[in-house]
């Protein structure tokens, strides 16, 4: 072995190659997992970037949780309103695929763990840098998966706000990921080709020298195919217990271990998923009563104050739109009814498309104020909704009035709206 020519003393414990006994470890096992992660993490990264763009962070400071992003926002674009299920799809894929990749990531890390202990610690400057890069890769992957998984369970133990941590962490991870792919993907793909060409079964003779292969392996207790089957089974189990929360009714009930899975809250037309309850947002019934609540609409021609009765006197329109949360859950289309945002804009002198700044009665919460772009305001399906599924909104769904915009992330569909300011932000 090449190793024995190196001028180092043989290591002890995990630093000795003999410590690692599993006959499963080898370039082929690692290559299969690596190629799955290459595809999976690429999808996670792209859908993550799309989710970031969906918030329109370059539109107004209130939408931007990462004002120092610099060139990392190079690709930002106006988030479209079509198809209306766009964010439901991209974010559902982002979170559900992320969950399903957990066992693949764990297996991949297991398969290469002996490399953590290789001696000498660095054979050259490049090798030393590569090991630092691997710390960013492994730390970054675990950081991204951990912050994401904790956030969807509302476990806010993170050392800061989720948005900047997950966003900047993703770029640190991606930097290391690209280097790893450039350096390793050709080898992994070559290994897979060899496997497909037939020499299935035991590791080929040219693999025996690979440092992943145990020099003194134990007797196998599971085949490579069996071990990959277990990893795939873990992915399927996570998928089967999570994917249902992107749907309603019986499908949602299959998401037995996932937040916003299981039965819908309450019963009747308003029995669909709630992101933040009125009680949690600090909304008091006294503020939303017919007498107390007034909607302030400001724009070019001044301010108009409207009661709910005034709004009901305006032309009402309907739109069937889903709610999709950054946490990965979503509802099917709900049937919303209310006043078009563009009609409200016209009321205060904006006949041309204008951005809008929306403020809620909500006292705390990151998105109690949010901005929508002119293309979102102009869409005829964008409503200040007063009804859902044929009934008045309940307090938890934003009574007396809430925003609903096609394809926008859930938190931009502000509930308990108190003020709309049209015009340049």
């Amino acid at each position, binding site marked *: 072995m090449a190793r024995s020519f190196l001028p180092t003393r043989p290591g002890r414990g995990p630093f000795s190659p003999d410590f690692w006994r599993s006959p499963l470890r080898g370039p082929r096992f690692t290559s299969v997992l690596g190629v799955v992660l290459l595809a999976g993490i690429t999808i996670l990264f792209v859908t993550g970037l799309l989710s970031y763009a969906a918030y329109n962070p370059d539109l107004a400071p209130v939408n931007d949780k990462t004002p120092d992003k610099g060139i990392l926002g190079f690709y930002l674009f106006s988030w479209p309103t079509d198809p209306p299920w766009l964010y439901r799809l991209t974010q559902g894929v982002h979170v559900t695929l992320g969950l399903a990749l957990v066992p693949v990531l764990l297996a991949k890390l297991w398969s290469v763990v002996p490399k953590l202990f290789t001696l000498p610690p660095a054979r050259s400057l490049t090798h030393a840098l590569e090991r630092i890069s691997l710390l960013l890769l492994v730390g970054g992957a675990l950081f991204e998966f951990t912050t994401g998984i904790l956030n969807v369970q509302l476990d806010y133990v*993170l050392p800061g706000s989720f948005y900047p941590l997950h966003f900047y962490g993703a770029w*640190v991870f991606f*930097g290391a990921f690209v280097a790893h792919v450039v350096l390793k993907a050709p080898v992994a793909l070559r290994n897979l080709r060899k496997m497909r060409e037939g020499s299935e079964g035991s590791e080929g003779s040219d693999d025996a020298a690979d440092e992943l292969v145990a020099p003194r392996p134990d007797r196998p*207790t599971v085949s490579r195919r069996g071990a990959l089957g277990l990893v795939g089974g873990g992915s399927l189990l996570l998928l089967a217990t999570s994917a249902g929360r992107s749907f309603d009714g019986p499908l949602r009930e299959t998401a037995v271990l996932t*937040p916003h899975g299981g039965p819908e809250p309450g019963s009747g037309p308003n029995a669909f998923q709630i*992101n933040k309850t009125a009680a949690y947002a600090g909304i008091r019934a006294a503020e939303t009563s017919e007498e107390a609540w007034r909607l302030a609409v400001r724009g070019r021609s001044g301010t108009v104050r409207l009661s709910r009765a005034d709004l009901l006197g305006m032309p009402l329109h309907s739109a069937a739109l889903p709610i999709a949360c950054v946490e990965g859950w979503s509802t099917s289309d709900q049937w919303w009814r209310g006043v078009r945002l563009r009609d409200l804009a016209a009321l205060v002198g904006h006949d041309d498309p204008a951005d809008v700044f929306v403020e809620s009665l909500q006292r705390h919460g990151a998105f109690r104020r949010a901005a929508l772009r002119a293309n979102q305001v102009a869409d005829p399906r964008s409503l200040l909704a007063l009804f859902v599924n044929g009934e008045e909104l309940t307090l938890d769904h934003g009574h007396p009035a809430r925003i609903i915009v096609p394809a926008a992330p859930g938190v931009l569909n502000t509930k308990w709206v108190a003020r709309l300011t049209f015009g340049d932000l």
Partner: protein
Amino acid sequence: MRRSVPYRMVRPVLGSPFHLLVLLCSFALCAYAGVRLLDGDWFMVMLWFVGAAVLHDLVLLPLYAAADRALVKGAGSRRRVWVPYLRVPAALSGLLLLVWFPLITGRVSERYAGVAGLSADGFLSRWLLVTAVLFGGSAVVFAVRLRRRPPADD
């Protein structure tokens, strides 16, 4: 020939120039995002970032590897045939616990109920139920296989 002499001397110290270039490009991006990631409670963020890798590589992985080793050793060479039927459901159940422990242990129950208006009580019992189904299913498959083909002694 003359040019190759200093190169041969440098190469073992430096390593592959292509690798070096790729890594330096990668570090530039990591550093650009990294200073922004660390803007804030930099010590805690660093602790989470590095701690995640350390905790996984030096705690979680050795723990489950030791548990698996104990299982295989405990089974003895004659009874190894039932090892997978214990290993698979244990691994799958452990995986679910690892991912969903905030909900299963109830540490976020109060917030979950307050925020989402949903009950957080069922997660522990549902996880136990899934675990029971996994082990039960595995036992059934094992029994069927035993019936069809008694294990060969080795």
